[in-house]
């Protein structure tokens, strides 16, 4: 009796969901963030339901299997707009966004009530590599150190320190492609010394992101600038949401999300901006890292470039925008703080432009060269800039590095709205290091 009473109570908790983002799965993430019955968690260990949102490409199945097996019993899975693996039986699949929270709640409740069995483990529970300790006492190697126990080299002083001469042991591991603080789909191999990033090599590029359809329409015919600018502001607010969540400002991040959801030409940014300044977001959080030099800034383009002092903006070439007397505002420092200040300024600017454009009914005039929120799109759309992280992040502390990743919009843009997607480029994967897949 007691147990059933406990389970009944347990079924009434906020449903802890670990989201695994597939292509275009971030929309589901944002929808769930505002659902009161759902709690999005950062670690699969903290979840009751594994949500696979969007199609996960085949090269990320192996990490997905590992994440699947990291959820503690009892747990269940839900596939949203993606095909469940055939060997998983009776796995629910959901197509409509507004049905998603309800489906998650049902999954959790049924699991608690015992109406649904916990999902089985897919992989066998054994170390990926056998123990290879060499010493007499079971230690890694000859003497005190060395050897490759469990297929991993022991952490050792193998690299010079790159910052202040304090050389600690370095530890190499892989993180992603489902780590919540990374852009969806990105995986990196990282060497840390203490919590200082020693080397960073991006192994899997983030999924190409799809922009608001209006940007694709703008490539075909003139569109109302008001609509274009609102979509731009929304895109930036969505990125701000992720960054504020990472910075520990959960309530402010939800404010940003709500603002994005209800964005209209009468919206203002003032309240959110004041709240961020007052909370000390620009002063207390990790904000000094990720300084881009002009060449790197140009590679990424968009707000990141303007935050580094380049005043490139294709909107300057558009007659419609000239009518609205548009001129890009820039920051100079090119670090994380400058990028967020630039982003806030651009959201503000977009809202003003949208207001003016709606009143005067201004349309764009250029179709071949447009400025997307991700960067300029002339002959080719904005391309994946994640290799740039390999240059920018070494030397930063972990928190600083993740704040930098959140402030840089590196994912490529899908070439056609909802159409074919470029296959992800799988870069060389080096072996022999610990894997952490989240």
């Amino acid at each position: 009796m007691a147990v059933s009473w406990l389970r009944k109570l347990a079924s009434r908790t906020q449903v802890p969901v670990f989201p695994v983002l597939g292509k275009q799965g971030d929309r589901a993430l944002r929808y769930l963030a505002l659902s009161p019955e759902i709690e999005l968690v950062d670690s699969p260990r903290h979840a009751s339901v594994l949500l696979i949102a969007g199609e996960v490409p085949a090269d990320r199945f192996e990490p997905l299997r590992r994440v699947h097996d990291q959820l503690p019993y009892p747990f269940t899975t839900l596939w949203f707009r993606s095909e469940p693996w055939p060997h998983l039986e009776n796995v629910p699949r959901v197509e409509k966004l507004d049905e998603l929270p309800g489906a998650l709640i049902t999954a959790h409740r049924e699991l608690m009530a015992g109406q649904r069995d916990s999902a089985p483990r897919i992989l066998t529970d054994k170390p990926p590599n056998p123990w290879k300790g060499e010493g007499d006492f079971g230690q890694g190697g000859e003497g005190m150190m060395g050897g490759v126990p469990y297929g991993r080299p022991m952490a050792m002083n193998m690299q010079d320190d790159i910052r202040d001469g304090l050389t600690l042991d370095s530890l190499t591991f892989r993180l992603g492609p489902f780590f919540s603080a990374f852009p969806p789909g990105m995986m990196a191999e990282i060497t840390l010394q203490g919590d200082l990033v020693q080397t960073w090599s991006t192994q899997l590029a983030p999924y190409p992101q799809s922009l608001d359809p209006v940007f694709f329409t703008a490539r075909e015919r003139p569109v109302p600038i008001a609509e274009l600018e609102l979509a731009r502001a929304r895109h930036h607010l969505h990125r701000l949401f992720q960054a504020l969540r990472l910075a520990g400002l959960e309530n402010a991040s939800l404010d940003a999300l709500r603002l994005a959801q209800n964005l209209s030409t009468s919206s203002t940014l003032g309240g959110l901006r004041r709240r961020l300044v007052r909370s000390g977001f620009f002063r207390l959080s990790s904000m000094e890292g990720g300084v881009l030099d002009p060449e790197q800034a140009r590679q990424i383009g968009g707000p990141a470039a303007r935050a580094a002092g380049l005043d490139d903006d294709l909107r300057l070439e558009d007659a419609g925008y000239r009518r609205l007397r548009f001129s890009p505002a820039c920051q100079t420092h090119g670090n994380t703080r400058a990028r967020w200040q630039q982003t806030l300024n651009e959201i503000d600017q977009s809202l003003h432009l949208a207001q003016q454009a709606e009143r005067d009914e201004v349309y764009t005039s250029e179709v071949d060269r447009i400025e997307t929120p991700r960067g300029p799109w002339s002959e080719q759309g904005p391309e994946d800039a994640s290799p740039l992280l390999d240059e920018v992040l070494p030397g930063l502390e972990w928190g600083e590095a993740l704040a930098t990743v959140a402030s840089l919009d590196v994912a490529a843009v899908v070439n056609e709205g909802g159409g074919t997607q470029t296959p992800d480029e799988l870069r060389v994967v080096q072996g022999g290091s610990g894997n952490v897949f989240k």
Partner: protein
Amino acid sequence: MFLNELLLPVLMVTFMLTVGAYVVAVLDRLIAGAFGAPQAGSVWLAPMARGAWLMTQHANATEAPDWQAWRLAPALYLALAAIGLAVVPWSESLVATDLVTSVVLWGSVEALATVVIFLHGWSANALLPLIGGYRYVALGLSYILISMFVLIGVALPAESLQFTQVVASQEALWNVLRQPLGLPLFLIVGLGMTFWGPLNLADSADLAGGTASEISGPPRLVWDVARAAMLVAFSGVAASAFLGGWLGPWLPGPLWMAIKMLAVLLVLLLLGRLLPRIAPERCVTLMWVVLLPLSFLDLVWAGIGALL
């Protein structure tokens, strides 16, 4: 003797642990709701439902963890919170253990908390908890030092290391006024020690939950309860050391104590919701270069006050 010296104090501390942790969970939800977090269902039932879910979830394993330390760490942190609650006086006579060195005992609770938090991060044998554990140790030392100087400051006018004496010494003037730097510094230590809100660097979002990122089920429940209970113990110590403990007109002593503890809790939880997480590097600088010198100043101020 057995009843008075063992059973009653244990019952009292257990009661405070449970009620305190529950109050923290409810208050935090209420504050989050007031700032616009979406909420469903009853705020009063939510902590229980969450606890029940964690009870049904299995405790997971990682690859070759240090089992003993991993399972013990949450329980030890809870035990430390219990020790902290045991030295908090509710009135002149109502105190679980009225040790003559209770202020020093609280100091050692802070020091041992560093050990336990590090052990919790280290023993999981996983990367992100490990970084969380290291971060706490790097910062924990500065928290301990600041707290030590601030507490020596309140022991000086009382001429005693006993919390009951410290409270009694505030009959004429509360320490929050006598040593104006003390309480703000001590509150920052409190946020640090329970790694709450802006100083949550050990269990932070950039580490997917830090030292707690690999635990689930009952151990996670114990860890969460222990953190909340530590916050309560801390607010009890802060209320005794700076806000005159049970002293106050009209109402009975324990009630005053409860009101003051709630006030401290409320301030800490509000700070936790309002401020972003501080960058670790900046936090180290802040602690050693700004707050520690301020705590020296507080001590010198207290010393001059005691000499005059």
